[in-house]
């Protein structure tokens, strides 16, 4: 059995660890609230730009646009959004696992653009070709970052460096659930509008376009892309913070359990020591008689 002194030391250090995890939990709870507000505030725009894009695409028919060009997928790019930091449970691991799943059996040429340090480190170590990396995204996601990523993607795509582009990120479902998702960014597939898909073509509204539908589409597509990436960044941020909060909550809980277990064995050890001393004294006294 461990000595009394060892037990005391272990209790002390576990208590210190618990203080840290508790503090981290409080910090990420505050950050999570902010990040969560940002995601929810950004969702209407996303939803609407998708709607408008769908309707414009429907109205403009088979328009040729460099971002709509479908090529045989020989060179595929993954835009991977992870967190910059760890200590958030399986958050980064889940995204990375999702990517590795996608890559399994792929014979295509693969390149990656990573946002967040964790994804970058992982795939760089494994020798993947990383064309762009965005690290140190900070707590407040800037729209600018999304613009940089999307202009890189657009450039590579129009130069036919990529034939397909996918976005992999963690969707923020709720505080306890983050779901890694893979979304096809390019060639852009204008989402079918829910209402129109159900009610058929009769519902098709004849829009006036100013300028022509093709031109609107040409302006809309890059914005759509930017927004998809921006939304991904926000979702990922909110997910990261809530994953960290949950992880730290568990850690604090585990530390409590550990402390109570250790305290119990410490008390036992102390009791045993006292008992032993008494019996030694009694034994000593008996020997004198």
């Amino acid at each position, binding site marked *: 059995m461990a000595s009394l002194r060892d037990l005391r030391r272990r209790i002390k250090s576990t208590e210190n660890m618990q203080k840290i995890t508790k503090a981290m939990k409080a910090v990420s709870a505050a950050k999570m609230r902010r990040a969560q507000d*940002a995601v929810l*505030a*950004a969702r*209407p*725009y*996303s939803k*609407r*730009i998708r709607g*408008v894009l769908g*309707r*414009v695409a429907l*109205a403009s028919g088979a328009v040729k646009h460099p971002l709509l060009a479908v090529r045989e997928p020989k060179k595929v790019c993954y835009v991977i959004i992870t967190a910059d930091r760890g200590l958030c449970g399986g958050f980064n691991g889940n995204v990375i696992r999702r990517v590795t799943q996608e890559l399994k059996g792929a014979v295509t040429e693969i390149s990656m653009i990573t946002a967040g340090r964790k994804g970058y480190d992982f795939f760089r170590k494994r020798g993947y070709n990383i064309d762009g990396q965005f690290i140190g995204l900070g707590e407040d996601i800037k*729209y600018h970052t*999304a613009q940089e990523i999307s202009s890189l993607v657009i450039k590579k795509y129009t130069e036919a460096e990529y034939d397909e582009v996918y976005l992999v990120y963690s969707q923020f479902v709720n505080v306890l659930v983050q779901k890694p998702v893979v979304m096809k960014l390019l060639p852009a597939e204008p989402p079918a509008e829910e209402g129109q898909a159900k009610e058929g073509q009769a519902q098709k*509204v*004849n*829009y*006036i*376009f*100013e*300028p022509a*539908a093709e*031109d*609107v589409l040409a*302006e*809309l597509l890059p*914005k759509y892309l*930017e*927004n998809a990436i*921006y939304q991904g960044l926000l979702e990922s941020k909110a997910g990261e913070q809530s994953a960290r909060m949950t992880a730290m909550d568990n850690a604090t809980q585990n530390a409590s359990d550990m402390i109570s277990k250790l305290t119990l064995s410490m008390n036992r050890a102390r009791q045993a020591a006292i008992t032993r001393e008494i019996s030694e004294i009694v034994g000593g006294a008996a020997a004198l008689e």
Partner: protein
Amino acid sequence: MSEKTQRLDIVTPEKKIFSEDIRFFVAPGSEGELGVLPDHAALITALKIGLLRIEQEGKKFNIAVSGGFLEVRDSKATVLATAAERAEDIDVDRAEAAKQRAEQRLASKTPDLDVLRAELALKRAINRLKATGR
């Protein structure tokens, strides 16, 4: 008799900044300004940097938008703006500073100058100032 109104939503990538029933608005379309009354025909247009002039039950006010799109359908108008600010939210000092910065950049004529970007920045700054001016 209440006047006929239409719904106007203004959303930016960051958040929804306006969602109210209004009577009339003028939008800075890429092909020229256009006014929209309730029951306007369905329309989708690109917007350029400019002012969204809104009339709402006797009130008139401006919202500065820096490009985006406008969709009108069933007396519901949606502005998808890259950035949008209500006149009262605009920080005049900051806008003034941004304007001067952009002007300086344009005037300096350094070889690595991104003229297009500087011009856009200047346009946005002027636009923000205009929104507060009235």
